[in-house]
């Protein structure tokens, strides 16, 4: 019979079998990455054909950074699983497409607080401000910590273009050149689909790195997320981020069958 001893005493056999074991582990982890696009549903508006899931606007992106900095993900997930109880409590299950521009994704692994995948639009801005400042003022049984400094700290956004460039490098379609914005053909004659065509004229300007700072300030001013239009604070950014979570896909426009067929 085959004994482990014979493997341990033959270095050649040990090397070969170790390589086989590592290769299996490696292949299982690496190969699916090459087919990951097949698992992401196409979510295009049935009327306009535009992609519904867009990258974050500059303000939302800064809000997301603050979400990460404060460690919100340690207690809040952003992943509604296709179970009846979750569907009833949180809404439609999360789609792969909805976190395609998240680097890293915020699915989380533990729910000490509720899932936030579809918290956008569920509560008013005033509620979010009151809740982040002092959670127990609106939810008496909450065990969430207070985050009062968000209202006091001015939002730093001098490096917003660099932040967007970094994400662009890992595949988020923020546009830098005219070609990436409008589309057309490169000098070599390769056709390029611009953001204008993919996301439409309303969204494309928000994804333009060159206009990032102006867009960020404009969104904070129109949105007035923290109730204080005079100051651009970290609260503005975080609430802007929370208010868009899970709102990009309008499920009323789709037959549920569309998403089942994607599986």
């Amino acid at each position, binding site marked *: 019979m085959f*004994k482990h*001893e014979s493997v341990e005493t033959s270095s050649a056999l040990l090397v070969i079998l170790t390589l086989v074991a590592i290769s299996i582990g490696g292949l299982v982890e690496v*190969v*699916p990455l090459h*087919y990951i696009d*097949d698992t992401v549903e196409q979510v295009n508006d049935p009327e306009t054909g535009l992609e519904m899931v867009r990258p974050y606007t500059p303000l939302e992106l800064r809000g997301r950074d603050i979400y990460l900095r404060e460690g919100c993900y340690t207690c809040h997930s952003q992943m509604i*699983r*296709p*179970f*009846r109880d979750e*569907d*009833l*409590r949180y*809404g439609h*299950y999360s789609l792969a497409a909805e976190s395609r521009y998240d680097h890293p994704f915020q699915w989380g692994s533990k729910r000490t607080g509720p899932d936030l995948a579809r918290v956008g*639009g*569920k*509560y*008013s*801005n*005033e*509620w979010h401000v*009151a*809740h982040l400042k002092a959670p127990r*003022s*609106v*939810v*008496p049984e909450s065990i969430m910590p207070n985050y009062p400094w968000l209202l006091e700290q001015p939002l730093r956004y001098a490096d917003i273009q660099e932040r967007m460039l970094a994400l662009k490098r890992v595949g988020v379609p923020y546009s830098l050149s005219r070609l990436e914005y409008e589309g057309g053909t490169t000098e070599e004659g390769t056709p390029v689909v611009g953001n204008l065509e993919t996301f439409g004229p309303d969204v494309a300007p928000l994804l333009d790195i060159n206009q990032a700072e102006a867009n960020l300030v404009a969104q904070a001013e129109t949105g007035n997320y923290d*109730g204080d239009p005079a100051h651009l604070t970290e609260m503005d950014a975080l609430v802007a981020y929370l208010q868009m979570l899970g709102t990009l896909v*309008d499920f*009323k426009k789709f*037959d*549920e*069958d569309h*998403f*089942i*067929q*994607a*599986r």
Partner: protein
Amino acid sequence: MAKPVKDPLTGAETTGHVWDDDLQEFNNPLPRWWLWTFYATFVFAFVYWVIYPSWPFFGTYTKGIGNSISYKTDAGEEKTTHWNTRALLANELQTGSTAMRQKEYLAKVAAAPYEQIVENTDMSAFVRSYGKGIFGDYCAACHQSGGQGVPGLFPNLVDDDWLWGNSPEQIEYTIVNGRHGFMPAFRETFNDQQLDDVANYVLGLSGLAADPVKASQGELIFKGETGGCYYCHTKDATGMYSQGAANLTDKIWTVANVSPRQSEEKNLAAVKSVIANGIQRQMPAWSSRLNPTEIKVLVAYLKQISGAD
């Protein structure tokens, strides 16, 4: 194969290796139960791979055998597909036992007028428990679990005072479309004297102690063009549902923190602050999250907990 080497002291089998003169290693086998459980997981994995979707395979994957699920599309077409959690969820929401029981009641509630829902024991018991769930998920964050609201921020729903109307249709409209409560800030329009006058008038409307001279001055501002308060609050100060303007004569304070139990100065300061700073309140629209039947259940539930007409 070499004969097993035994440790002379314990008689247990060793690997036969000896280091540093006398250091040896026991060759203890794994417990039998552990080993068989380990092998059983192999068998389980193979069975699982066959039945359920598992192995990715160049752009597609093995879809499982003998394990299909039927569901209905929104258009009503019956479809059958390989096992997957999305189809399973659709199937459960369409034909699961809880869903079926709820569906029966939801259909009844959807068809009945509000008076009948409240009078019928069956339906009103259903509304009480199902509505409580919806209210807890969507409304309680602001209006609190008992509907008592947060003073100054989120309206109390159980105090018999309604800003936007108390008929089922008006409440329904509020839930479907949301509301934007707005009162302009008067700190630029009024000087401190005028603020004081109007605040005294408003407090006097509720029978709270007020300076009669100041109050009569305030009344002129309230009912005149200087303040124009009557546009929304009406000349009787009874408020206007269409503007979400509060009734100022009913002794229920929806925004300012006023109470007959606290000092006059405190009450005056509270009312002045509201007039000076105005009000900006937003209730989200729920039509994209709740379907019409769920909203109807919610309205009926609100009628139950608040005693609305």
